[in-house]
C-alpha cells in the first residue's frame, strides 16, 4: 500500500513535471517575445522618466522628479486633455456609426455577410498614409469635393486643417476596429432571445434597450477601446489632416524624441499615456467579467 502510494505520487509528480515542461515549450516563444520586445523596452522607458535630459540628447543618469512635475504644466495638461477630448468624440461617432453597421451586417444572409465584412476590412489593405493623403486630395481647397460643389454654385469651403478633419480622419481610420468586435458580439446573440422578448410584448425599441444592448455591451466596450487607444496616441492624422495646427499627445511625445532631444520627458509622457490606457483596460476587464 505504502509502495503503491509512493509510486503513484512519483508518477503524479512526473506527469506534473512533464506538463510544466510542455507548457514552458509552448509558452516559451511567446514569453520571450513579450519579455524582449515589450517588457524590457517598457522598463527602459520607465527608467528614463527618472533621469535628466542630456544637453545634446540621450539621458544623463542623475535622478530627478522634474519630468513628472512638468507633466502638470498647464501647457502639456491642455494637450493631454484636448487629445482625450478628440479621441472621445471620435470614439462616440465611431460607435454611433459602427453599431447600426455591425447590426445590419449580422442580419444579412450568410453569403452577403462575408462580402460586407471583406468590404469593411478592405481599406486596411492600402497603406495608412496613402489613405490619409487621399483625404487631403478630396478635401483640399482646389480638391475634388470643392470642385464638384463649385459646379453646383457652392463653396469653396475650407474643409481641411482643423479639429473637425482630425476627428473625421480618426473615425475613418479606426471604424473597422469598432465594427468587427460589435459584429462578433451581435452575431453571437441568440435570435430566440429577441423573439422571446417580442413574444412577451416588448416593442423593438424596448427589446433593443433591455436585451440586445446589455448582451452586446462587451463588444461595445472592446470596440470603443480599439478606436480610442490608437486615436489617443495618434500623431500622423493631426499633422496631415490637422495641418499641424493642433497637436495631440502623440505629437508631443514624437517631438520630445525627434525634435527636442528630451527622451526623459518623452518617456514620462508615454508613461502617462500608458497609465490612462491601463485604467481603460481595467474597466474593460471589469465589464467583460460582469457580462
Amino acid at each position, binding site marked *: 500500500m505504502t509502495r503503491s502510494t509512493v509510486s503513484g505520487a512519483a508518477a503524479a509528480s512526473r506527469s506534473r513535471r512533464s506538463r510544466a515542461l510542455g507548457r514552458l515549450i509552448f509558452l516559451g516563444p511567446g514569453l520571450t517575445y*513579450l*519579455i524582449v520586445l*515589450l*517588457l*524590457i523596452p*517598457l*522598463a*527602459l522607458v*520607465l*527608467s*528614463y522618466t527618472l*533621469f535628466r535630459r*542630456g*544637453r*545634446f*540628447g*540621450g*539621458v*544623463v*543618469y542623475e535622478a530627478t522628479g522634474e519630468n513628472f512635475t512638468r507633466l502638470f504644466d498647464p*501647457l*502639456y495638461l*491642455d*494637450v493631454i486633455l*484636448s487629445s482625450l477630448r478628440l479621441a472621445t468624440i471620435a470614439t462616440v461617432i465611431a460607435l454611433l456609426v459602427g453599431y447600426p453597421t455591425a447590426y445590419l451586417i449580422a442580419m444579412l444572409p450568410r453569403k452577403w455577410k462575408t462580402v460586407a465584412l471583406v468590404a469593411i476590412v478592405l481599406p486596411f489593405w492600402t497603406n495608412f498614409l496613402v489613405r490619409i493623403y487621399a483625404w487631403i486630395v478630396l478635401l*483640399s*481647397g*482646389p480638391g475634388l469635393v470643392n470642385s464638384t460643389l463649385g459646379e453646383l454654385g457652392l463653396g469653396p469651403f*475650407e474643409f*481641411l*486643417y482643423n*479639429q473637425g478633419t482630425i476627428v473625421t480622419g480618426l473615425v475613418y481610420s479606426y471604424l473597422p476596429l469598432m465594427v468587427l468586435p460589435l459584429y462578433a458580439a451581435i452575431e453571437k446573440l441568440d435570435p430566440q432571445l429577441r423573439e422571446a422578448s417580442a413574444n412577451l410584448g416588448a416593442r423593438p425599441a424596448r427589446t433593443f434597450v433591455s436585451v440586445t444592448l446589455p448582451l452586446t455591451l462587451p463588444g461595445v466596450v472592446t470596440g470603443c477601446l480599439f478606436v480610442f*487607444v490608437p486615436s489617443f*496616441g495618434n500623431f500622423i492624422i493631426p499633422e496631415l489632416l490637422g*495641418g*499641424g*495646427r*493642433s*497637436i495631440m499627445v502623440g*505629437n*508631443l511625445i514624437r*517631438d520630445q*524624441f*525627434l*525634435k*527636442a*532631444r*528630451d527622451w526623459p520627458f518623452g518617456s514620462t509622457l*508615454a508613461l502617462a*499615456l*500608458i497609465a490612462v*490606457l491601463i485604467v481603460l*483596460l481595467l474597466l474593460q476587464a471589469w465589464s467583460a467579467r460582469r457580462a
Partner: protein
Amino acid sequence: MSRSRYSRRLPAAALVAGLALAVSACGGEAADTAAPAASASSAQLDPNADLSKQSVTISVWDGYTPKELPQQVKEKLKTELKVTLHDTNETIMGKLTSGADTGLDVAFVSGQYAQALNEAGLLEPIHPELVPNLANLFPEAKELAYDKGNVFSVPYTWGTTGICYRTDLLKTPPTSWNDLLDPPAEAKKKVTMMTTERWLALPAIKALGYSVNTRSDEELAKVKEKLLAAKANLLAYDDTTFGERLKKGEAVMVEAWDGWCPAGEKNIDFVVPKEGSDLWVDTMVVLKSSKNKEAAHAFINYILDPQVHGWAASNILYSVPNKAAMDIVDADLKAKTPSLQMTPAQLLQGESIIDLGEDSQKFTRLATEVAAQQ
C-alpha cells in the same frame, strides 16, 4: 500603447533588469556629460596610410550625394564606401549621442548640430593637411559662426530661408516677413510656415528685428505673440510639401528654404525678406570613434573636388561653398534658379544658426505653445 496583459511580478523584474541596463550604459555616456570643452586631442594621422585597407561609412540625407558615389570613391581612392541614410538632423543626433558605437566615420549634419557634437567631444578635428581641396572653398566659408576656421566641420551646402510665392496669385510681391505673418486678403488661409522650431520662429524673430539665436525670454514672448496672431491666417504648418502646395495653388505664399522653392516653375519666385534671414549650412564631420580617419579625410577631400561638389549644386539646386564647383555649374541652370544666384557675400548677410544648448528648450516650448493654441 501596449495592450498586453502580463503577470504581476514580471513588470517589477523587468524594471530591475531595465535599470541594470540603464546603469551599465552610464559608462558609455560619460562623453556626453563631460564639460563642453572643445575636442583638443587630435589623433596622429598618417598621410601615407594605405586607403585600400580602410573603409568609410557615412550617414547622409537621402538623395544628398550621387547614387554612383560608392563606385566613384572605390575607383578614385580604392576605399570601400558604405552609405547609410538619415531623414533628419535629430535622427542622426539621436544615434550619435546614444553612447553606442555607430560604426560611422563621416556624418552629414547641419552646422549647429556639428557644433553640439563637437561640444560633446564626439568629433575629430579636421586635419587640413589631409584635405588639400579645402583651398577650393570660398573664403567666406571659413567665417561660419558655429565653426570659425572649419576646425571640426567642412561645409557641404549652404543657403538661406525666405518667402516662395506665386507671382500670378498675389497682387504685389512680398518683400517683408510681415507680408507672410499678416498676409494680404488674397493670401489669407493660403500661407504655410515651417514647423521645425528654429524656422517656425524665424519670420517673427526677423520681423521684430531680433537675433535668430536669441535666448531672451522677453523677446521670445513677443515672438510667440506674433506667431499666434499669424496662425489665424495660416493654411498649415509644413516642412516638406510646401512646394507642391504652391504649384497646386493651394498655397500662394510659403516660408521656404531657397533650394526647396520650385522657382524654376512658371509663376513661382523666391525672395529673401528685407529684414534679413538665416544662414544654414550642412556640413561633413569626422567622428572621434572612427577607425578609418585617414580614409574619412580622403573622402571629404574627394567631395570637395569641383566635379563632385558641383553635382550637389546642379542636382539638388543648393548653393555649395566651393568656388571651383560653382564656376562649372551650367549658366542656364543658374539663371533660372534663385538659390544658385546667391553670392557668398549675400549668404553671409544671413545670420548663422548656432546651437543654444540648454536654452534650445525655450524654442521647443515656444513651438509647442504655438501648436497647442487653438
